[in-house]
């Protein structure tokens, strides 16, 4: 009883840690959850490198679910991660040249839920990657101006000084142009 409780506690500590960007939580996640998933991949014709990729993608699924803000763990974290990894690995195996019978490590039931989570993840992930590309394609000083203002929440006055604009209106116009350019790149893709 007491052991299960502490497992649950560890699970929720990891989830809170990921939400807050705590590196210790990510380390703990690796320590506890990577080995069984690596075994699953390696025992099903995967290499250790492939296991690492699958696990990283699984963690990204978890991260995106947590960032969505409505993540409630309905099972143990291990169960969730394992189901997702298994599904991702199966997808990998059935994609392209890897020949492997799908049902051999597949059992129905849980795989459907995992499939839904992954589809949702891939959709959102594509959107975020597109934004990341747009930001990277924006160039300076636009990227930093937008970053400072929208992400860091810095004041227009501070930005004005940092970039040496002679008056606040110029800075504001520049910022607006940058935002419009970003939107253009983002929506064009």
């Amino acid at each position, binding site marked *: *009883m*007491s052991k299960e409780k502490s497992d649950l506690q560890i699970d929720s500590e990891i989830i809170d840690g*990921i939400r807050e*960007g705590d*590196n210790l939580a*990510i*380390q703990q996640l*690796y*320590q506890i959850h*990577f080995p069984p998933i690596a075994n699953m991949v390696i025992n099903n014709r995967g290499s*250790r490198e492939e296991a*690492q990729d699958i*696990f*990283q993608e699984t*963690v*990204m699924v978890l*991260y*995106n679910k947590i*960032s969505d803000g409505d993540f409630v763990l309905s099972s143990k974290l291990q169960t969730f991660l394992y189901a997702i990894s298994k599904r991702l690995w199966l997808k990998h195996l059935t994609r392209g040249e890897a020949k492997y019978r799908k049902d051999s490590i597949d059992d129905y039931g849980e795989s459907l839920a995992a499939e839904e989570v992954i589809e949702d993840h891939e959709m959102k992930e594509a*959107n*975020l*990657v597109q*934004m*990341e590309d747009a*930001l990277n394609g924006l160039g300076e000083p636009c990227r930093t101006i*937008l*970053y400072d*203002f*929208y*992400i860091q*929440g810095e004041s227009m006055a501070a930005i004005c000084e940092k970039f040496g604009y002679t008056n606040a209106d110029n800075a*504001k*116009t520049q910022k*607006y142009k940058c*935002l419009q350019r*970003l*939107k253009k790149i*983002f929506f064009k893709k």
Partner: protein
Amino acid sequence: MGMKGLNQQEFTAWADAYLRGELSHEDQLKFEMYCAENPANAELFAQHKAFLTTMKRAESRSNFKRNLEHIAQDYHKVHTPKPATKVISLWDRLKLNAAVAAAIAIVSVFSTLWLTGYYKNLRKATSDYSALRRDMNTVKRNVNAQNAAIQNINNTKDNTKDNVKETMHYGATGFMITKNGYVVTNYHVITGADSVHLQNHKGESFKADIVFTNPEKDLAILHINDSTFKSIKSIPYTFKRQDSDMGEDVYTIGFPRDEAVYGQGYLSSSTGYAGDTLAYQISIPVNPGNSGGPLLDKEGNVIGIISGKQKGIDGAAFAIKTKALMETLNSIPADSLNGKNVVLNNKNLLQNLSRTDQIKKLQDYVYIVKVY
């Protein structure tokens, strides 16, 4: 572009101020009113807000991913098994040659052994498996023999006859499997028995009948047949029918001497002596007298029955799997049971107890099996 002379840039700046919480309460309301009155701007605001959210999410995502990659790198640096070295790849290439050479070597070794008559001698040697019943008379008989020798000095009358008449006397362990008095031990313990007595750690002794034996699986089912034995309420442990995993923490209680002795170890292989799939190899120090003792996992499930060990190999003991016990129980003919059915306990009372408390609870159900 919007109404009331507000262009898109001005509106966006206003919206930003609103989102950043820079407006007074009054101005906030004004902004909300303006959006309510201008659906086009409300739409623009919703889009702008969603866009900024995506931007923030993308930014934290790429931060997280960068962190994750660093941590993953550090983790794998520490935990990755060393890559195959050149020696190994050389081995890969020469494997076939080595295999052929080995095959020739093996053939020549065995043909030499055969030619020199080694196998004829070998047949006489006994197996290296040793069952773990205890010969309780050894010490006594030695003492008796000494006494006899001493007496012979004083008295020429031959009294060694008594010693010859004395029957063999073995001891081992057994444990209860049902609350109505069925007990399991090894077949090799009770083979050739005239009578079997079970003694618990409190010193109470009960007479038992041999109900069924299965020499092949080395199991014997006994039933306590003694007026002083009262049916007990329940047995604290359950029987785990599935195979347990290698590396599992296991323990046993047995009677290698007249007091109960605890032994602890791990499950070292999922097959027993000579690849027997109905047994486990375990690493627990066991001695003659441990035969028939229960093998339990950390939750207090019985997973096997201690049966023997391999001579000359340290820490290689064997236990018959619970599966074999189940098969044996199922094969008992109904008329051997005299209407007393074998109903196994399915409620584990040991599960969340500490090891010492588990032992306290279960030792009432482990017996010395005394065979005359």
